């Protein structure tokens, strides 16, 4: 294809990404300026450098990075783009930090429609703007057809955490309360409902959301009484609490009846033989909070739109086996273990 052909504007309606859009030449420049800059537009990107210099306030910096390979790319409640922004903001926010800047790296499969890429980029821009976070640098690569599942996105986030706040998964203490910000399993069930060979109708949408404002009100209410915060993404609540139990060298005792799960999520999990506490979330957090401040933090969570269904679901206990255990709705007890491998539906 001649270079002249690329003098045209991107055909955002019918065009597709080809290998030249990752080649470093004019086509790539047109893709970046005509699509990504339009979607993310801000003063840092406008300077068109390979990096961005930015101001930071006092405090300690927090940095995280994450890759997004979700399938399908579009789902009720969001798409891979908004998910990439929310997920990385949340990873920053779980330190108690205020997220400030993101980078975004795209690995795009040859043939990917510009129209889909525009929807995804626009939703990233919108998610970032809503959160008051700026996407200030990025990268674009195009790989041959068949070498990527449409689109992969990696995002890196930077934020600032206030002095005196030091949340870490090794800081849980016996007697601490376990709080969750809302119903579990919404995102994972939504994604499953849209998979090609498992399509089913559900009223549930992804809970994908940026949680840093919820975190801010929690920090205001609980301060350093908040020992640990985590967003229970892959592996769900079970994996998150097992990680914390091992890092803090204690156990947890949960109360099944207190764990919020939407009826549609519970029913879907029942049908597929899955457990909602193993299913992924993208807009929920788990907080381990000192017992004397737990009620105040929970009240602050409930007063925030993203925490209106927050609940106190259990406590940290001394247990040298580091078990997460649950009092069942029947008065029995059982272990809540890490999931092993992928959660696979049972045969019958």
């Amino acid at each position, binding site marked *: 294809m001649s270079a002249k052909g690329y003098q045209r504007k991107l055909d955002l309606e019918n065009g597709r990404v080809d290998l030249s859009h990752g080649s470093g030449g004019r086509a790539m420049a047109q893709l970046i300026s005509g699509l990504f800059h339009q979607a993310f537009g801000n003063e840092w990107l406008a300077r068109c450098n390979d990096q961005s210099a930015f101001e930071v306030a006092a405090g300690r910096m927090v940095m995280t990075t994450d890759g997004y390979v979700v399938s399908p790319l579009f789902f009720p409640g969001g798409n891979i783009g908004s998910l990439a922004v929310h997920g990385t903001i949340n990873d920053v926010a779980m330190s108690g930090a205020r997220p400030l800047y993101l980078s975004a790296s795209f690995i795009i499969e040859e043939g990917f429609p510009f129209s889909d890429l525009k929807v995804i980029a626009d939703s990233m821009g919108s998610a970032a703007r809503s959160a008051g976070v700026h996407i200030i640098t990025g990268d674009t690569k195009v790989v041959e057809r068949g070498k990527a599942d449409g689109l992969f996105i990696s995002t890196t986030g930077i934020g600032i955490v206030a002095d005196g706040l030091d949340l870490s998964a090794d800081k849980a203490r016996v007697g601490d309360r376990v709080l969750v910000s809302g119903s579990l399993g919404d995102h994972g069930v939504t994604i499953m409902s849209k998979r090609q060979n498992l399509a089913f109708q559900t009223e549930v949408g992804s809970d994908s959301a940026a949680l840093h404002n919820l975190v801010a009100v929690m920090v205001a209410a609980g301060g350093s009484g908040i020992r640990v915060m985590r967003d229970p993404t892959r592996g769900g609540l079970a994996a998150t609490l097992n990680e914390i139990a091992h890092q803090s060298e204690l156990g947890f005792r949960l109360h099944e009846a207190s764990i919020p799960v939407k009826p549609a999520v519970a*029913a879907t999990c029942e049908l597929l033989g899955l457990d909602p506490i193993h299913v992924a979330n993208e807009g929920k957090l788990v907080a381990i909070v000192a017992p004397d401040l737990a009620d105040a933090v929970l009240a602050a969570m409930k007063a925030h739109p993203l925490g209106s269904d927050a609940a106190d679901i259990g406590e940290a206990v001394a247990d040298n086996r580091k078990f997460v255990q649950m009092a069942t709705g029947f008065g029995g007890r059982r272990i809540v273990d890490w999931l092993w491998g992928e959660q696979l539906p049972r*045969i019958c």
Partner: protein
Amino acid sequence: MKFADEFRNKAIAQGIARAIGGEVSSQRAYRFMEFCGGHTHAISRYGLEDLLPANVRMIHGPGCPVCVLPASRIDMAIRLVDRPEVTLCVYGDLMRAPGSQGQSLLRAKALGADIRMVYSTLDAIRLAEQAPSREVVFFAIGFETTTPPTAVMIRIAEKKRLKGLSVFCNHVLTPSAMHSILENPKIRDTGGVPIDGFIGPAHVSTIIGTQPYEPLAEQFGKPIVIAGFEPLDVLQAILMLVRQVNEDRNEVENQYSRVVTREGNRRAKDEVSQIFELRAQFEWRGLGLVPNSGLKLKPAYAQFDAETRFAIHDLRVADNPACECCAILRGAKRAVDCKLFGTVCTPETPIGSCMVSSEGACAAYWTYGRVRDEPLRRTS
């Protein structure tokens, strides 16, 4: 979740538990085998053992189709999928089942085999339609519950003239396995604990009804209660078994009467009997060769039989000699009695069949029950 909440009522559960506690005799032990992995899962997940008197013991039986599939059949499937023209369709939790020498379908897939995880036989039909040049093989597995969908798949393939679709048949039969547990001299003579009664399968019985269990109850003098998978179903079945034992009755009772009849689903049974016939014997993990316990395709449907079509022959592979699955599946030992349990055999690295599927006896104990190994130090 109206279909389930009614069967998870704490107050009713505690009422049934009190009734069980009130009716058991302190002079004797009650040892009940729940044949089906679904019941094992329910007992473990809801912590039902905590509600039972100490002298009522549940024994986890072999009723998990993945658990009882011998390593040889996994090896055969891996040989099959070594052929470049084959696409193998597999139900999810079969992917991890161990073959011999640490092989599994999950590992074969990582090494490049064309293995697709499917959720129904219709997925295999769709694949065969989409790729007419491929040999699409459906890895059929399961008890009487999953056999009718396989029969329907073959019927559809015949109607649509899908020449590239076949079945690797591993369907097995519940009553034959129960018979084997009770009757096999090898099992009787190797320390199998006495079984005072069975909780009979739920889903299986929706197909075959309660009638096929009647000869077992009569011949061996064991009460059998067919029960649903909800926790209240299980508790009620235990109460019914306790009453039968106390009254010295050996009947087949139907706790799951909201779904199961004596005759079962005639149409499903007809479909199965038209397509399948008994194998003279079939190997089960833990139970060895069990006569008349497996199904194969009738000669009229040989074109859909992957074993015939690809001339794959039965293999015999020895299980790890240290693995106690055999004794555990028969109720002779518990998971914690096995030296491999929790050491080299864990859900991440299953050695024996009981650890493979989440419904296996060892996996259920590992996942849900280890908390009972020693009392928890209470701190609050």
